[in-house]
């Protein structure tokens, strides 16, 4: 038998040959930079603990500390996320430094007024989302790699501005008065920013994971729609004004329930838009420019899976909160009921795919319909039905 380039025999104790690397546990794959990143997270958390100790209770401390490993793992798995976090941290801290504890400086300081006060940052996010949408479409239609890369970069920057806006808004709420200060996820305006941010980040993750920017044109449509609503809400209803928390919302459950929910909503939105792309490509429309059907189908599934998992947690957290605020974990309030409907819908979707082996257009249509149901649960309930959820009537 011929000797060809033999790899050294692998003994369980020896170092893993290159071939084995992908299967090495995450922790053993980390380099110095990864640990530096983790260290930065820890220092950041420690800084926040010391600096904002006065306004945090034990639950806040706990959540902050738990975030460190979570963000570390996300950053290790998804490298660009680290740059995102660093940029948000820098901008938010710069904004806070510029404020010097005085709200009026938002009008006097150029950088605050035109870049990194909360409203301005959110306006930047809005504008960038629109431009990014255009860039992705240009890239798709003109087959321009450059335009697509621009779209991607702009979406990253938009996400940075959106996250900065929310953090700074959080800070601003405390400047209004210590008793008013609260995390900015307490009304429809704030959660729309959160929705745009979450959806953009989830999309960017899949963009990197599947190494294709071609889905951006579709996913950005739904983000743009959310931003359009946000602007309408700002300009006609002055909804951006920071309001104090009514008693029902003064709960640490809110801080975990709402963001979890929006990972769910964002993922469902991504799946529906990828489903739309699938349906078009399947009919031959844009088929040569979109990723292969099996990629679209896979993203659709992945998004629904992550959305379903987080929506399950969110609904449970909502029930735990309801138990504390209203005395029962479930009382068929319209918002709760619609959350259940959304959940059942995607549970059925998953059964169809995973146990019945259903594939293709039916699931794509279903994912699109799922977004309609989700949208109704998200804002339709507030607009058309009455219930206990005080969360932003329109």
């Amino acid at each position, binding site marked *: 038998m011929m000797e060809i380039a033999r790899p050294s025999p692998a003994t369980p104790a020896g170092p893993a040959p290159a071939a084995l690397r992908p299967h090495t546990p995450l922790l053993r794959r980390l380099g110095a930079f990864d640990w530096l990143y983790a260290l930065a997270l820890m220092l950041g958390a420690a800084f926040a603990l010391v600096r904002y100790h006065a306004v945090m209770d034990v639950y806040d401390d706990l959540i902050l500390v738990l975030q460190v490993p979570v963000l570390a793992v996300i950053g290790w798995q998804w490298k660009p996320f680290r740059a995102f976090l660093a940029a948000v941290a820098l901008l938010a801290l710069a904004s806070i430094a510029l404020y010097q504890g005085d709200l009026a400086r938002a009008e006097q300081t150029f950088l605050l007024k035109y870049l990194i006060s909360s409203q301005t940052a959110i306006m930047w996010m809005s504008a960038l989302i629109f431009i990014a949408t255009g860039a992705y479409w240009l890239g798709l239609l003109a087959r321009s790699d450059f335009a697509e890369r621009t779209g991607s970069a702009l979406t990253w920057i938009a996400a940075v501005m959106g996250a900065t806006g929310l953090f700074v808004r959080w800070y601003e709420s405390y400047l209004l008065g210590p008793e008013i200060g609260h995390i900015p996820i307490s009304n429809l305006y704030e959660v729309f920013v959160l929705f745009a941010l979450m959806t953009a980040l989830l999309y960017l993750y899949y963009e990197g994971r599947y190494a294709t920017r071609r889905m951006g044109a579709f996913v950005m449509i739904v983000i743009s729609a959310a931003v359009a609503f946000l602007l309408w809400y700002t300009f006609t209803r002055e909804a951006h004004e920071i309001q104090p928390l009514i008693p029902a919302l003064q709960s640490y459950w809110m801080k975990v329930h709402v963001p979890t929910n929006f990972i769910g909503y964002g993922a469902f939105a991504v799946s529906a838009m990828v489903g739309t792309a699938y349906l078009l490509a399947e009919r031959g429309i844009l088929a040569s420019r979109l990723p292969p059907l099996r990629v679209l189908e896979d993203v659709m599934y992945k998004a629904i899976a992550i959305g379903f998992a987080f929506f399950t947690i969110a609904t449970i957290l909502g029930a735990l909160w309801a138990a504390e605020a209203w005395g029962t974990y479930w009382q068929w309030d319209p918002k709760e009921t619609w959350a259940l409907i959304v959940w*059942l819908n995607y549970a059925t979707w998953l*059964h169809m795919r995973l146990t019945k082996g259903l594939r293709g257009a039916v699931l794509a249509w279903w994912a699109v319909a799922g977004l309609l149901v989700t949208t109704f649960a998200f804002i339709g309930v507030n607009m058309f039905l009455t219930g206990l959820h005080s969360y932003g009537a329109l």
Partner: protein
Amino acid sequence: MHSGIARALFELFSSMRFAISLLTILSIASVVGTVVRQNEPFNAYLNQFGPFWFPVFEKLGLYSVYNAGWFLVILAFLVLSTTLCIVRQTAPMLREMRSFRERAREASLRSFAHRVSLVPALPPADAVERAQAYLAHAGFTSRVADNGEGTLLAARQGSAGRIGYFFAHGAIVLICIGGLLDGNLPLRLQVWLGDKHTTAADQVIANIPPSARLGTGNPSFRGDVFIPEGRSTSFAVLGLADGILLQELPFNVTLDKFHIEHYQNGMPKRFASDIRITDRSSGQTTRHTIEVNHPLTVDGVTLYQSSFEDGGSKLAIKARSLLPGRPGVLREIEGVVGESLAFADGAAGFSYTLEFTDFRAFNVEDMRGNEGGQGDEGEAAPRGMDKLQRHLGSGAKGAEVRDLRNIGPSFTFKLRDPAGQAREFHNYMLPIEQGGRWFLYTGLRDAQADAFRYMRIPLDERGGVDAWFAIRDRLLDPAQRDALVARFAARSFPAGRGQDAMREALVQSARQTLGLFAEKGYETLGGFIEKSVPEAERGPAADVLVRILQGLAWEAWMLHREAGGEPPLQLDPARATFVNDTIAAISDSQFYGAPAWLQLDGFEERHATVLQATRSPGMPLVYLGALLLVLGVFAMLYIRERRLFVLVKPNEALVAMSSNRRALDVDEAFRQHVEGLAAMLGAPVPASEPREGA
């Protein structure tokens, strides 16, 4: 035969098709309950759906969908179906989790979607050893079997994910059962089996019969506990569709104080009850504060801050007469919110029951856009870049669009006539400013479902409502009418200037105007013009009548001042406005439907808290279920079960992979494993490996 049917039913109920149908039906059924508002009073539904549909919908249980029999049956089927599904899947799943499928044949491996043939550079024994080392490193557990065709390495990973199936589906069953225990089914069973009967709400507790009382042993309930400040109770009221039941609590609750705090902008900030819990057997007392989001659990009963009401505030009231010819205060009343008293006057011929329903010490209202707020029209709305500019900066801006103000105390009451018809009133204690003028507001409505319509009584120069009442009395009282008209006419056309005829004409029209106005205010005047004046001349004619009314009202005001020994006034724009407001309010007052206006002079506020008391035996089950559900869902979705087979033959290593989930990452993983194995076995990596089709 029997077992045949049982078998078929088992097949049906545990089938995926049945489960998916159930999930769909459950979703649709849930929608119904969000479209029709649930658990409202029956007459609200009667109004909404009309006499034909109301009973139909009632039979269908649409007013309480989630407690309706058919809905519970769907849930029961879901529990049944999921349970049977678990039963059915248990044996095959466990088998799957344990087996390595080491008896797989070469032919079957070659039919796998993911398979590739490598040519190892090693003798088979070494190749087996190397491949084994690779599999162990890649996180597989494996078995070696010699199946006659070669040495088969059968490896698997992620089988634990199947436990997720049991967790998640078992969780559904747990949650449904727990939810059932905490729903109102146990209560309805007690009503049904335990000879309990609901009774009417609004009765004195002592009068409630034992058949409507539930003992402290009741394992599952949810009810309201109403306690005025300074009082105690040991009962919760459970509301059912057709009445209430009284639930005895294992302790006494006393409300020491109820706190309401507001933010500066008037939004509510804190509701809290300072309570004392007294154990009935030991007599021990403990103090607690219950707030929204901060409940208290005692003796297995959890108390939540649910809402608050008036707990019997004392109101000092003056009933100011609205009866023409009987000016002044009819009566001084000491009212208590929640109580009622007779309000009758033989001479004036009225007889009502006065029911005080609510009192509020604070009323924060958005006063923007009130007519008269000229500020708004003054500046043009910003456009374009200006508008954008306004929305840059901090999120603290934006207050200019709202004008929240505390407009002081108010109370509501009902006047019920002997026929049982009631009209509801809402009176403010303090005047409210609008566009530089001040008014006292009083609202009325005929039905609970209506909004209040408000009458605005203008304040006079001394900041009171005496002038308004006096002017009204003089305008509406027929006995004073002639004197008023004569004086008005004489003032307009003084005697001795040869204007007698005109004066006489004015007397006639003034008398007629007043007569009409005294009926239903502007409405009768308008009707009169419409009937008797040609369309083209209606405008000027109306002007004339309004001018006459203004003159009469002014004259009535001056007469009132004269009677009080005050000097007459000079007419100026502010006073003219006052006269117009006065006339408008007098016109509205013709529809007021009460013999008097109740003026609030003083109050002694007393709150009552409404706590919710629950005992939820299903809660631990539900929470356990929730935990299992999360673990199960994540396990099912993210622990990937994979089987890798390496069949080592003298000149070939056949690599095949299967997974219980078909997704792109399976392709990717297979590619990596093939590369890894090829490297370990010193085999060239095949150019392209077969892939699953799209």
